[in-house]
């Protein structure tokens, strides 16, 4: 059972207090009516299915705050949690590995 740090209260809580809400940073078009059916379909229905570093949104039920989690989908390791509007520190390298965007060398990989 996951142990998740809420980035607003800075406290760890058990998974039972949270609800997973799918992939993070799904952006709504500024003008939905001017999107094509294909673009709108992508927004509505298509999500990444990542083996490795995954950015996902969670809801902390008691405080009703949405926030983001960077989780490794193979190990379930949570690399960071971050607030709405912020950018994640860890990115997928596309091969199951992790890129630390705040490391001195941008391409440097961490475990």
């Amino acid at each position, binding site marked *: *059972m*996951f*142990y998740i740090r809420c980035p607003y209260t800075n406290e760890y809580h*058990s998974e039972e207090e949270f*609800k997973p*809400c799918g992939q993070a940073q799904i952006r*709504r078009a500024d*003008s*939905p*009516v001017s*999107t094509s*059916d294909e673009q*709108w*379909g992508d*927004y*509505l229905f298509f999500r990444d299915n990542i083996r490795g570093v995954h950015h996902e*949104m969670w*809801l902390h039920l008691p405080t*009703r*705050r*949405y926030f983001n989690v960077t989780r*490794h989908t*193979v*190990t*379930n*390791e*949570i690399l960071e949690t971050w607030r*709405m*509007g912020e950018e994640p520190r860890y990115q997928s390298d596309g091969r199951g590995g992790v890129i630390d965007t705040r490391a001195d060398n941008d391409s440097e990989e961490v475990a």
Partner: protein
Amino acid sequence: MSQVNRLDAGRMSSEHIDRSSTLSFTHDGRTLPAYPGDTVASALLANGVDVIGHSFKYARPRGVMAAGCEEPNAILQMGATPETQTPNVRATQQPVFDGLVCESVGRGRSFIERQQKALTGLIGKWGGRFMPVGFYYKTFMAPQSAWLTYEKFIRAAAGLGRAPTVPDADTYDHMNRYCDVLVVGAGPAGLAAALAARRAGARVIVCDEQEQMGGCLLDSRERPDDRPAGEWLKTTLAELEAMDDVLLLPRTTANGYHDHNFVTLHERRTDHLGDRAPAGMTRQRMHRVRAQRVVLATGVHERPLVFANNDLPGHLLAGAVSCYIRRYGVVPGQRLVLVTTNSHAYRTALDWLDAGREVAAIVDARAEPAGTLVDEARSRGIRIIAGAAVIECRGDDRVSGALVAGIDIENFRVTGETETIACDTLASSGGYSPVVHLSAHTGSKPVWNDRIQGFVPGETKQQLHCAGGAHGIYPLVDVLADGAMAGGDAAVAAGFERVSPTLPGLARVEESPQAALYHVPHTLATMRAPKQFVDLQNDVTAAGIELAIREGFESIEHVKRYTAMGFGTDQGKIGNINGMAIAARVLGQTIPETGTTVFRPNYTPVSFGAVAGRYCGALFDPERYTAMHRWHVEQGALFENVGQWKRPWYYPGWKGARGANGEETLQEAVNRECLAVRNGVGILDASTLGKIDIQGPDAREFIGRVYTNGWEKLPVGKGRYGLMCGEDGMVMDDGVTTCLGEHHFLMTTTTGNAAQVLDWLELWHQTEWPELEVFFTSVTDHWATMTLTGPKSRELLEQLTDIDLSRDAFAFMAYREGTVAGIPARVYRISFTGELSFEINVQANYAMHVWEALFAHGEAFELTPYGTETMHVLRAEKGFIIVGQDTDATMTPEDLGMTWAIGYRKPFDWVGKRGMARVDLQRDDRKQLVGLKPLDGSEVVLPEGAQIVFDPEQQIPMTMVGHVTSSYYSATLGHGFALAVVRGGHRRKGEHVYLPQPDGSTLSAEIVSSMFYDPKGERQHV
């Protein structure tokens, strides 16, 4: 003749039984004596019970083989009463208490043979007890339709134990715990780790599955600090017990190691005390531990060797024999042959000698065995046969001899002459498998270690440390040092400073390397030799594994599933490595190339009671009551569950109302309640409606974005019906939202959806439009809601309120504040019945007073309470939808014919607008909401969910064009009616549709408007 195999008092100073009193217990109807401290297995052995059950496939006699949780044969059905039945308890782990009642789950040969005869009747003769591997797949899978016939016979024949038939009499609970270091296993490694971690300052929990902590120290021949191991153990445990912040949990199995260092510990608190838990105690407890670091000191399981007839009672694991002798003072025979691949097992022969019994021979697979224990065995005159193995066990219901031969491990063959050695007990040791299960639960792949001929834990992302045997460190002196190191490491990782450990002085026991022998060759080919068992609980043989591979199952996971190896309650703790070794040999691979199967929780069986804890019965899920709940109960209401709410369903026999045949039926009560509303006045407890208070300068803008219709012009003091869609354009909720002030709105939601709608509002606010200044608060529980409805509702309410209720002063859809029965109230003129209605909201704590005042004044108007069933009929007569009943996630507002609630020209692209414009949602043959009037008589009520077709003569499969969503009998209309979705229904008014029924009949109906009653809406405007 009792306890024939019990040693004389004082013979074994290491024993842990209490001889000062005698207990008695009943096994398979026989009452037997035992001592406190015995397990059922040790007591059965002490009493000379060899055959404990019969195997479920071949009905072969089986006896105790092990002394711990890995036991495959001695499996018990526990419990003296139907309320205390527990299936599949390992006799080796069940302590004896006075009056214990148990039976073996291997139900005896006659039962099994009877079941097999029943199967023979089904499938014809298949040759006695010959059931090859894959038997069920090969025999029963064709023709497919026959499976249903076979299944009940197979289910009856297979399986272990019986599920209880009545509710459990005991209670169980859960406990959340946190610690710095959790130590799993209280053997030498675990105790050393716990001491080191605690001395460094860490809060420590130690759990161990056995009755007593100590692990191998309980039966060790070694002498730490030149004292018996048991004495060092006692001192160490006393030291730990005296420490603060150390929790020692014996009888507690770490059954699962889950993500983020969450470990579940299954504690059996009273199973050793009696058939039922003592009053005030829970029987078992699940500790849910979140540990900073975990130390796995889970030790090893000994492997037996696989040779012919190795399942005979009297063949035990070498370590188990030592355990029974040294811990329980039980020596399960007179004359022993020990067959081994390693030096450590020699201790069993020495223990046997110490017990005063005879050792016929030690048969060692190695050509040149050496080491401390080997030397001691030689010096005590034991015959050692090197480079050989027991290739076959002789005997009927008990071992009577061992067939010994020289073997060539490399070429898997027997060399030279065979010799039969008479004996009544055979102990075997094929090496040791580290208990990697918990580490594997974390997703870690076990890694093969050639030195110890076993798998050790691999890399993991969890914060764990291994200690001692669990990762292949075997000599006790090293185990203690390794445990202290692991405990210190764990404490340091948890933020403490290491304290250098004090370890007992201990001489190293020298051992020569072990032989890599698993399956012992026979003079005959495996397929022709007597059965050589790998998994005793599932009757999987070496020949079965060879056959599975010949038939093409090469992956160990496939071999496992085809042969059922490791599928039993023991999960292959004894047999799996041997099975993999056989598969590897046949495939010409190494064991690591063949790989292991996946280990998953639970490590040993866990009772459902412990899983459920207190979450059962009334505590399974919270129940929510409205402020008027007591009144409803007193008035005889029946309730229905709506989410967690208990809502009055209907009030049968209210105020003495009687049905045609006495008691009022549901239909009769609903008819009465409906007519009361239509002709007089009724009242509904609507408190469960979700209510969300929305405030802020941008509240109006926000509401306009999440509802489909327009909100710019709604004045203060007015309410409006709103439809809420997902981004896909599908209806997800509806309700009336009222403008209480320029920056203040009250949104109502459907009862079951309140929490989801609040999450939904927060989602849009927090993720897309954080710039809007708006706040949401759930006020569902704060306000109690009473719907007063019917033509006489105004007259009644006038008697109790200071609000001007006249049509001109308080128009339809308006909202007023005032008092009702002296209590400040919010009154809304909204109607879900189509009648003149007032929805009275008061602070929930005053609601009962208002409710009772309404009834006091309502007597003159025959005020009638109605429940959800009547509410459904009344709203359906008006064509009002219930989201979730008349809609599913595929209905747009347009499908519902509710284009009047769509603000196509609103400036902002509200949620759902773009989705609704998708091409597929614009098709005119989508399923659309219509009314259905049955054509087969006024009493007909179409079944809800019934499928609709246009052509009743069409061949099956017919083209289904929709289904009935709501259907009732209307006392007002005098006939049945229904709401339904029908393909292209909006332009099919007047057409007939057909509803084929399961009994072969067909109902018919006419498509009509969904508004059956007062279609112009005049009655609610009066």
